[in-house]
Each structure stands twice: as C-alpha cells, then as structure tokens.
C-alpha cells in the first residue's frame, strides 16, 4: 500500500494505491477505483478504469505535477505544511502581481496618499498592459519593486496601509 498526497487547488487529497494481481486498487476520499495499468513510459501513463482506457501525460517541475488527461490539464502540487495564508497584519495590504511581467510604470512613491481605484503601477507582459489599482484608500508604505523590474506572478509590489 502506498499513499500519495497532492494539493488540488486549496484542497489536500490523499490517494491510496494498493497493487495486486496486475491491477491497482486506488482510493480517493471514499471513491474506490479498480485500475488496470496498460503501460507507463514517462511522460505517458495509460490505464483502464470501468472498461474505459485513458491516456495521460504526467510531468513534474519539482513542486507541481502536471497531468494532461482526456483534454484536461490538472495541476497537482506537493502539499506544503508551512503554507501560511492571510499573513496580513496591522491593517496593511500588499498588492501582488496578477501576472508575470515587467513594471512598465511605477506611479506612486513611499508616503503617497492614494484613493480607492487609483492606478499605482502598470505591469506589462506580452505586449499587454494591466493596471494595478488601489483596492482602497490609504497610504503607500513601501514600493517593493522598481520601474523596469521583471516580476513573477504573485510577487508583492506595493505595501498599502488603510490609514490616510
């Protein structure tokens, strides 16, 4: 019996896998599948469940397993127990990049008072511009990036306080 854990979206799922007689009994939550392995040569895995053959491609980049199956792509992450969410404190928010890209324009500086909806920064990628706007009125505590800097998706850009 082998157990594997994956994070799908925000949910952590345990997959129990019991080999026996050339087949696998695979349990996901309360669902039990009787699976026959057809072949597996990386990145391809073919198997039969309930009389239907499925061909999947499975690849890995160290933190995420990407599975292409029946026209879908499913991302399975390694569960990270340290994943601390909601790390906001003292009424401060940090605005993060909604896409990877380059900071085309940084329109505010430390200490600036901003209005709700004001454009703080323009991010550019693949010839497309998106505006990062203030979600609420407040004051710029710190700009965490420079103009021209290339940022990753999710990277924090600007710290914004609620205080005027």
């Amino acid at each position, binding site marked *: 019996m082998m157990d594997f854990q994956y994070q799908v979206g925000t949910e952590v799922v345990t997959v129990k896998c019991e080999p026996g007689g050339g087949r696998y009994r695979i349990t996901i939550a309360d669902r039990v599948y009787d699976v026959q392995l057809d072949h597996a*040569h990386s990145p391809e895995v073919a198997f039969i469940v309930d009389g239907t053959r499925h061909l999947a491609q499975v690849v890995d980049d160290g933190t995420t397993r990407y599975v292409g199956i029946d026209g879908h792509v499913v991302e399975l992450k390694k569960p990270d127990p340290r994943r601390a969410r909601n790390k906001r404190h003292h009424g401060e928010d940090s605005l993060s990049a909604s896409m990877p890209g380059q900071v085309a324009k940084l329109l505010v500086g430390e200490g600036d008072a901003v209005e709700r909806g004001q454009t703080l920064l323009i991010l550019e990628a693949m010839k497309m511009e998106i505006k990062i706007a203030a979600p609420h009125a407040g004051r710029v505590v710190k700009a965490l990036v420079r103009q021209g800097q290339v940022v990753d998706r999710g990277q924090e850009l600007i710290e914004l306080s609620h205080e005027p």
Partner: protein
Amino acid sequence: MGDSIRRMGSKTQARALMQAAGVPVVPGYHPRLGGEGQGVRDWADQTGYPVLVKAAAGGGGKGMRIVHQPDQLIEAIEAAQREAAKAFGDATIFLEKYIEGARHIEFQVFGDATGHVIHLFERECSTQRRHQKIIEETPSPLLDDDLRERMGQAAVAAARAVDYQNAGTIEFIVDPKTREFYFLEMNTRLQVEHPITELLTGIDLVNLQLRAAQRQPLPFAQADVSRRGHAIECRIYAEDPANNFLPAIGKVLLAQFPVAPGARVDSGLETGDEIPIHYDPMIAKVSVLGEDRADAIRKMDWALRHTIILGVATNIPFLRAVLAHPVFQHGEVTTDFIEREMGAWRPPIDGGRDLALIAAALSEVTIQRTGESANRMIAETAYDPWQVTDRFRAGG
C-alpha cells in the same frame, strides 16, 4: 509594391482609397494628433455611441478601444495613442462607428505583377476575445453564394485599387441583420489564419508568394480556384483561463501536437522551451479540414484534446468550450459573442480530477521501480511498431 503596403498600411489612407474605388466603408473620423477636442466629440455624438478607437498602423486589436459613453472618449483616445505608439511606433489613431453584433469576414486575395488579381474565398473571424481572433473558419456560415460573390468582387476591386501584388487580406465587417458589408482594412501580408484557406483550396500560398516575388504570373485564374469541405483554425495562446486570461510564462515541460489526416499544426514550440514575457502569447495554431462544418468542429475538438501543453497554462479548455457552445455550433457567432455570452466562463474545477490523481499515483508507482525494470520498459518500447514517435523525458 512598397507603395501599396504604405497606402494600405495606414488604415486612414486605406479608407479613403476604398471609398474612391467604390468599396463600402464604415463611417469614420480622423482626429489630428494632439489638441483634439470638440471635433471628435461632435462626430461621435452625431454618429452615435458606441464608437471604436483604432490605431492607424494597428493590428491584432492592439490600441483598440470601444467607447460607450461620451465622458470616456478622450481618455480612450489617449490610451489608444499610448498603446499604438508603444506597439507600432506610430500614435496615429482614428475612430469608426461601432456596428454592434457584427461579423468579421475577410477575403484572401492574391495579385501578380501583370495586374491579375484573384480571391481565394473568405475566412470567418468573428470568434474574438478582447478583439483578438481565436477561432477562424472557412467557409463562413453566414455567407450565401450571392453575398460571397459580391464580397469577393469588392475584395478584388480593393486590391486592384492599390495595384496589389502578392498575398493580402481584405477585412470586412458584415451586419448580419442587414447583410450589408463594409471594408475594414487590408492586411498587406500573409496572415496568421492563412492555413485554413490553404486547407480549403489546396493552394500553397507561400509557394505563390515566392513565385510572385520572382514576378511570375499567377498560374491559374479565378474560375480555377475551388474549395472542398470546411476548415477551422484555433489559436493556442499562453494565457491562463483560471487567471482572467492573463499571460502565462515559464518552461514548457511537455508539448505534444495532434497527428491525423486533415490536421495541421503550425508551431515552433517544443518540450523544454521557455515562454518569456517579451513576445505575443500565441504559441501554436491548430487547424483541421472536415467534410462539412459539423465534421470540422468534431475534428477540431479531437485535435485540441490531443494538443497537450504542460507546465504553462493555455487557452485550450476555453477554445473547446467555445466549440461546444450552441451559438458557435449554429454558426451564429458575432464579434461580441465571447464578451457577452462567455465572459463569466471559468475552467471546470474538477474536470478529470480523479483520473488525473490516478494517473499521477500510477506514474509515481512506476517511477519507483528499479533501474532493471525501467530498462525492461524501454526495451519493450523499441520493438513496438505502434510507438514510432520520439520518446522524450521531461526533466531527464
């Protein structure tokens, strides 16, 4: 030829030329650079909102804005000028009446050095997201023989008006309610969506271009150009449908494309490639030729299921949802369809989830085998006549 490109390259000049050649154009306005104010407001008020702001040197929807309210007009013009300057090095923009519920239908034309100009039928390009074509097909489900004939003639007249040589495209918008058509612009180049014309007519456009460059006459006449079946192209973009279609970048851990009769893939993408932030997000074009439209849609869905790109998000799930939508199935897509009917679309959360978990677990079980059994699997593969493609291993 350089002159035709210049004349058609500026959308504003092209409009004037087309009017002179008797090709219908959409009512429009050309503001002066800088200092624009009352004139453009008056024109927009008279024409009626919404109006469209476009880059004169533009293409691909860059620098284009739909303006619904008078108070958004000036801001939209300025934003379009900035975007146009950045994308094309030319901030010139112009305005047009926005025809709501319109179809975008274009004609492939070809001219040679002797002044012989033909068309190679239409391409329906109404399926657009953010003014960017995502699915093209030919023939257009809207056209009948009469309208096709008239639009084809107008397209040829448009190309003749600039002594056009080589491959070009005359774009029209068609109001499906009145079945009136208007010249939109000419693209003086081979376009992204040319594969469907090649599939439909069996004519190699690039070959014709090379012949034209050698000043050879067209090897056939209009009457010799025929079409068979129905062709569809889907553009694959590195955009994440789960993140509001924003650009996706990173390493492509696996890229596999469909191989089948009547399927064509135009792509340079390979497993291991890096998709950077600096280029357009289009990474591949998948096209199919079917016996008829229903067959082509089925084949396209099959082809998309077999286009497997892992590691970087793509719009493939969205393309498949569009193909399955009743409006697309009925051939009634207008240029505002995606925003109107599919704006709230989100990728299915549990699409194939349990099967993916099974696949992942099985791959871990099999990878954990000893080196000996891994070798045995490779030996089996070598003798399998059905596994003739190259076997690659992402990450070694």
